[in-house]
């Protein structure tokens, strides 16, 4: 019955028309907008909770190639303004998020156009350079070829050291692939070189993509609209579980460069430019680099800073998910604890009806749902446990 209303609406419009999101908001007494119906919010919470939080080994040092399909199909207008623009926008957000969560990892960009795959940027740790390169190269034509892209990426990834996790994330707009040879062989090669291939489709499920992901241990999903696409691509930001064959522990040589003193002038090795005051010095060869993390251009040492390592650490030891608490109104103990330990806001929602809230299984402190998300997704440690 919705069909008739929606005729003529594109995917992006529909997401608003269907949601009627404005109707779900209400002004509270202090003039803030508050959602009436929290069910969607709760549902998201619930889903997040379902994810396993067991301490499994994860691949922290990732070498990820993002393959962007810029074939004819990427010009389709069902996403606004076009699939290509939406992809570019979300890739930008993803690249930033990725480096935020995986400071030790590197990304490279590959585009597929006219049946040919081109390497847009080499593996590198600087989000800005990737984004700049991508934005300059938008424009689509021709068919797309999954095999060419995989071949290229496979060639590039086969050189990286064995402790790194090789991954490909393919953002695929087209519904077919025009390949020069047998793609099954290429998939087999990817599997042999332990490349984890994931695909996010923008139009419809394709058998070959599914096959590829299944074989190489990646994930396959198809985006329904822009917000869904965003959700899907962001799911690739946290590091995936380590592949068993790589799970052997080994030591990696890393350098922790010092920040160069204010006012010192030197030529940086990455841009070959004279820079004043910014940059870091490689502890082994004393070369100057502008950004961390990176590999030293001169001696090849991996350069990181300690906060980068620390930031990756939480993936290995995630905080246990908080338990949902069904509040008992008449419980006097409960009364005393009716504020969130995080933000000190009252846990009683409007009308003194207790809302849904959660408790840390270790310290038993209560938190509201917003703090729950903040703790699990950004803070990565529990204020209750830390203050014990």
């Amino acid at each position, binding site marked *: *019955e919705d069909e008739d209303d929606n005729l003529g609406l594109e995917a992006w419009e529909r997401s608003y028309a269907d949601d009627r999101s404005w109707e779900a908001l209400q002004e509270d007494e202090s003039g803030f907008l508050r959602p009436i119906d929290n069910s969607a919010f709760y549902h998201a919470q619930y889903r997040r909770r379902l994810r396993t939080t067991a301490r499994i080994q994860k691949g922290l040092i990732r070498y990820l190639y993002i393959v962007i399909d810029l074939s004819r199909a990427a010009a389709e207008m069902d996403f606004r303004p076009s699939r290509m623009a939406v992809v570019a926008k979300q890739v930008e957000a993803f690249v930033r998020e990725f480096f935020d969560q995986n400071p030790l990892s590197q990304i490279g960009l590959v585009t597929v156009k006219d049946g040919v795959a081109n390497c847009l940027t080499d593996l590198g740790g600087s989000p800005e350079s990737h984004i700049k390169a991508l934005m300059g190269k938008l424009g689509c034509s021709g068919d797309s070829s999954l095999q060419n892209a995989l071949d290229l990426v496979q060639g590039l990834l086969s050189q990286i050291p064995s402790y790194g996790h090789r991954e490909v994330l393919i953002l695929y707009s087209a519904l*077919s692939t025009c390949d020069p040879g047998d793609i*099954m062989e290429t998939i087999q090669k990817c599997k042999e070189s332990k490349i984890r291939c994931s695909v996010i489709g923008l139009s419809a499920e*394709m058998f070959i993509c599914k096959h590829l992901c299944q074989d190489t241990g990646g994930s396959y999903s198809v985006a329904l609209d822009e917000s869904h696409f965003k959700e899907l691509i962001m799911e690739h930001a946290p590091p995936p579980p380590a592949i068993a064959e790589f799970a052997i522990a080994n030591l990696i040589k890393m350098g922790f460069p010092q920040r160069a003193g204010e006012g010192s002038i030197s030529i940086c090795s990455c841009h070959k430019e004279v820079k004043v005051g910014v940059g870091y010095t490689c502890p082994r060869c004393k070369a100057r680099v502008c950004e961390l993390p990176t590999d030293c251009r001169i001696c090849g040492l991996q350069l990181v800073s300690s906060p980068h390592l620390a930031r990756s650490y939480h993936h290995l030891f995630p905080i246990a998910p908080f338990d949902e608490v069904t509040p008992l109104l008449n419980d006097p103990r409960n009364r005393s604890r009716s504020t969130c330990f995080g933000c000190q806001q009252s846990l009683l929602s409007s009308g003194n009806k207790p809302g849904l809230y959660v408790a840390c299984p270790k310290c038993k402190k209560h938190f509201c749902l917003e703090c729950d998300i903040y703790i699990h997704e950004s803070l990565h440690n529990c204020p209750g446990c830390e203050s014990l």
Partner: protein
Amino acid sequence: MIFKLEDVTVYFPYDNIYPEQYSYMLELKRALDAKGHCLLEMPTGTGKTIALLSLITSYVLSKPENPVKLIYCTRTVHEMEKTLAELKLLHNYQTRHLGPAAKILAIGLSSRKNLCVNSRVLAAENRDSVDAACRKRTASWVRALAAENPNIETCEFFENYEKAASAAVLPPGVYTLQDLRAFGKQQGWCPYFLARHMVQFANVVVYSYQYLLDPKVAGIISKEMQKESVVVFDEAHNIDNVCIEALSVSVRRQTLEGATRNLSRINQEIERFKATDAGRLRAEYNRLVEGLALRGNLPIADAWLSNPALPSDILKEAVPGNIRRAEHFLHVLRRLVQYLRGRLETENVEKEGPVSFVASITAHAGIDQKTLRFCYERLHSLMLTLEITDTDEFLHIQTICDFATLVGTYTRGFSIIIEPFDERMPHIPDPVLQLSCHDASLAVKPVFDRFQSVVITSGTLSPIDLYPRLLNFHPVVSRSFKMSLTRDCICPMVLTRGSDQLPVSTKFDMRSDPGVARNYGKLLVEMVSIVPDGIVCFFVSYSYMDEIIATWNDSGILKEIMQHKLVFIETQDVVETTLALDNYRKACDCGRGAVFFSVARGKVAEGIDFDRHYGRLVIMFGVPFQYTLSKILLARLEYLRDTFQIKEGDFLTFDALRQAAQCVGRVIRSKADYGMMIFADKRYSRHDKRSKLPGWILSHLRDAHLNLSTDMALHIAREVGNFY
């Protein structure tokens, strides 16, 4: 899981059961209780086979006092293997829970071609020559000769089997054809004869329709199967056509020429025997005089299969005197062939009933009805006497004798149609004399009469009330089940207009309209750009498909399609089609995407599945009505109207819609599968057509999807792109 269904404990090998499987079992059980026949429609992919098998085997286990034998008929060897594999799973489950008490013997039976393990026999290319090669090595007289002369080749597997004699039995278990072959190889016994022998002891027999319906081969079970059997016809939506084909014979000029050659060969043989072994012929004569059953004392390898479709009195009657002697019989056949040749010379289309045809034979060739009736029996007796083993050479004369017997036996439900040329190619003389059966109930009647319960089941049996009338039986249960789905996995829609809002149809007067072809082309072009992987298109006939593809080629539509997907076409040539299908699958596998053009009622529409990514969308261009000017169809329609009060239009629509449903049903083979179905003809929106589609399609056909134009369909397709 194990559960109680009324008073039967059902052992079901899976942990979960769909609600429709449960109700299917319930209805089936009631039919078994009532010892009656039933008709059950349930969509493919809902586990029909396993539900059926587990209920019937559990039923037998719960009621050991009346052992019921299950006879399961499938259409193809592939389906047979699948059924046996499921049965094996079920059997393992049952024996795990019940111990050895649940042991059953289940075998598949197929032709020699599928069961033979003798590599030299298997080298023959088709079924008939494998049969002949086998007979050449196993006939009793050949073996008798070989005992004296070691140079004559025999089959060691058969020899071993014969030597083992009654010790040659299969231990209980479930045997697929492959298992049978492996067992035969290991023991050194011929699997084919072993299986044929074990059929009478087996609890479950799985074989092809022909073994029950075709009177020429049905004899193998007509003797051996007990009355307390449950006969299941799976995928039985075309059962009436199978029945009709089993009793129809067509005679062409080549057949007559071949028959003449066969006759002179037989004549030579008779002369030879006269010179060397006149006693044999006399012995045969005496036997016929005494009216003894022919094969009572012959070993099974030589046994010809009797004809259960014949009235029982014919079996008791003795062969008439004028054909008891071999030479006389030969003369009768010569005259018959001569007469038929004369009839084929005709310039006009002629149509006649069997009665007047027989009268005319009597007048012109001097052969009466009774003599005709015995031709089939007499010929086989003669061939046995003459020790002819290369039976594949004698197919022509066998056809003539089949024809004679059928004409002599039945007075109703048949007609003889002589056409001097094919309607569609009037310039090429290709005279054909067809004895066509109009009454599907004739072939299936012995089955209904003989067995306690007959179950007819398929994914598409709608409208379900027509089948009892066509087959002339009274089901105690007839039900159609819907599919319970966690999500909408099919999206049927009816497209009535093109993008220019003009109606599209393959109706006769609109067929040649270029606008319709263009609109169909546009539809496909749009669809290939938004549907992933495989698309299957069905056309109403080869000629229409050729025409429309030629139009598309001229207007460049084909090129546009090729930009998105590769195009493959079914042709009348089997090898070519198989190749096209293979490549189609490859193109779907490797992500290139492909379109397959096929014809309703063709080989592909009947037997090939386009499951999963091989068919994400199926487009039915037009309503696949039969060729209504065909004389045979007209005769059949007339008969149906007179005998069963089925209106011509009703039958045609029923037949067309079941074909259409069959075509679109090719894409859904399991619950996890999904696909779109487009019925592209304005006639589908009419109630009388639409209501004849099976319930499981109708329940997904929303009112909003009933009357669409190309762009609306496109939009909906994008919408459901979400479910891709």
